[in-house]
């Protein structure tokens, strides 16, 4: 047998929840999973991380909502979505029927919004856990983003942990747009986060040289894609070094199995694939296979053995 055909144990966990693959979708990059069904076995991937859901349906922002940038893109969608009722009525049952695990991203503009969403998701079949999107403006703090303030971020996470189903792990999704991501990570873990999703997009801007105005209707947007990968990897490295026991769902520009491997070696026990899905709707299955092969050729018998290996 060649090294390539060696079977690598790819199972991992989200908090305490076992999943068969470390490769997940990324919130906001695969809607609620349905559209990927022709291209990806949704039950075989780690989980479908849903687009962030809020209490009410949201139209999102007017167009233009995106701008292509070198090895990436800027987006300003504005969290368009059906609201929690639409998610519970239509999207989560659809995923559950197919045996797909949902990791539900929740978002709000006040602490109570997050807690109410967590309450509504208690015991819902197929919900493997919650990702808390704290990269939202806090209306009670003049619109400052929760993720940029360790105290506000902790308030949200503590409220969600108190309200959520104890069987559902909660991951806080961190923004890289902070001075010290380790201090935010420490704060949300102290507040009860079972894991950390990192990173969210970086805030960016593109100006059209012809109109001489910002391209996006929302003026600024979130930068994603391979352009941000080194930043994301640095964040994962720093946080894993400071908090080695805390599970990390790593993301930011992952396009290949070798990209995913870097995140695992830096300390991620699972990864999300986001913008790459726009380029390759079959990316999740491909990256799982490429990562398994890359681990095998490097002599790892399991994914777990490789988590944080670069620090050792």
């Amino acid at each position, binding site marked *: 047998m060649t090294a390539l055909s060696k079977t690598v144990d790819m199972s991992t966990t989200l908090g305490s929840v076992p999943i068969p693959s470390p490769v997940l979708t990324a919130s*906001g*990059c*695969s*809607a609620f999973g*349905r*559209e*990927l*069904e*022709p*291209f990806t076995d949704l039950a075989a991937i780690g989980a479908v991380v849903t*687009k962030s859901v*809020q209490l*009410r*349906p*949201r*139209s*999102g*922002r*007017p*167009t*233009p*909502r*995106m701008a*292509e940038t*070198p*090895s*990436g*893109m800027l*987006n300003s*969608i*504005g969290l*368009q*979505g059906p*609201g929690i009722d639409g998610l519970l009525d239509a999207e989560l049952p659809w995923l559950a029927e197919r045996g797909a695990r949902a990791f539900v991203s929740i978002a709000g503009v006040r602490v109570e919004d997050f807690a109410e969403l967590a309450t509504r998701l208690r015991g819902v079949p197929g919900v493997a856990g919650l990702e808390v999107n704290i990269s939202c403006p806090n209306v009670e703090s003049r619109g400052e983003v929760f993720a940029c303030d360790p105290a506000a971020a902790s308030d949200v996470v503590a409220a969600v942990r108190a309200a959520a189903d104890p069987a559902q792990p909660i991951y806080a999704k961190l923004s890289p747009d902070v001075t010290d991501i380790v201090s935010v990570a420490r704060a949300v873990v102290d507040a009860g986060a079972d894991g950390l999703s990192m990173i969210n997009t970086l805030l960016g801007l593109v100006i059209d040289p012809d109109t001489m105005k910002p391209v996006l*209707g929302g003026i600024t947007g979130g930068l994603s*894609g*391979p352009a941000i990968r080194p930043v994301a990897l640095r964040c994962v490295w720093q946080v894993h070094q400071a908090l080695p026991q805390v599970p990390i769902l790593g993301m930011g520009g992952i396009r290949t199995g070798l990209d995913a491997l870097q995140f695992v070696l830096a300390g991620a026990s699972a990864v999300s694939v986001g*913008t*790459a*899905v*726009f*380029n*390759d*709707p*079959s990316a999740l299955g491909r990256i799982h296979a490429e990562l398994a092969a890359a681990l095998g050729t490097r002599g790892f018998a399991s994914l777990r053995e490789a988590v944080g290996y670069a620090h050792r």
Partner: protein
Amino acid sequence: MTAPHLRTTYLTTPAPVADSSPVQRTVEVVGARPVDAYVELRLAAPEIAERAQPGQFVAFAVGGETSGLLLRRSIAISTVGDGVVSVVVSAAGPGSTWLTQRRPGDTVDVVGPLGRPFPAPPAGARALLVGGGYGAAALVGLAAQLKAGGHEVAAVAGAAAADRLCSVQELTELADILAVTTDDGSSGRRGLVTLAVDELLPDCGVVYACGPMRMLQAVADAATALGVPSYVAVEESMACGIGVCMTCVLPVVGSDGATRLSRSCTEGPVFGGDRVRFDDVGTLTWDVVGADAMGVTRP
């Protein structure tokens, strides 16, 4: 209560979803032919060809496997036959320019067929097909299908100038009547497509159009004013083409009468012409579902 400019009855029903799911394949280019300002690419893509219906599109990855251009380029299917899918590409930016530089023997990664096809015409209706620029290419397969179904077909192809016209020869062969208009008079009649549309509309029972947004609006408005149902295939920029990126939205009135920011890829690209709120594209009005959560409320 609806906004004052909204209709209360509609001549169209939302286009139904396609019969088949899309596939992603690496396919060979078997033909690359410059046609005036455009390039017609022919792809050996039997699994896409057998699934495709007129009005649908394909989405290309551009620049090769290590490309820094990550977003897919969505282009309407012109014709399918014998396992070959043809598209007409207009070189606008680096991605579409890369596509126009493909040569026979090259391979491309393509996803399709995507989007909702043109709905069938009313029984026995004469159809008017209106194409603006390379948008006319998207009507060639439809013209052939309509003729095969026993429908009379009138067609209008318009563009800024003669070299921006598209698929005129194919439409000449298929349609019972073809009118050509150019803004500068370099081919056909000088003026906008509406010159010819206004003359042909009264004899038609359905309109299908593809082209720039302003043209679609003019054609849809003319049809609606005469009580003729119209279906328009829009060309919004898309990052993925499959419905996950949420970038290609525009305000469209659904079957329940409510306006939603609808994805051009999976809820379109074909929409009822009287259901697209053309004047509100690129804005957010209070009566769009979920606008209140964005802070846009009724004045």
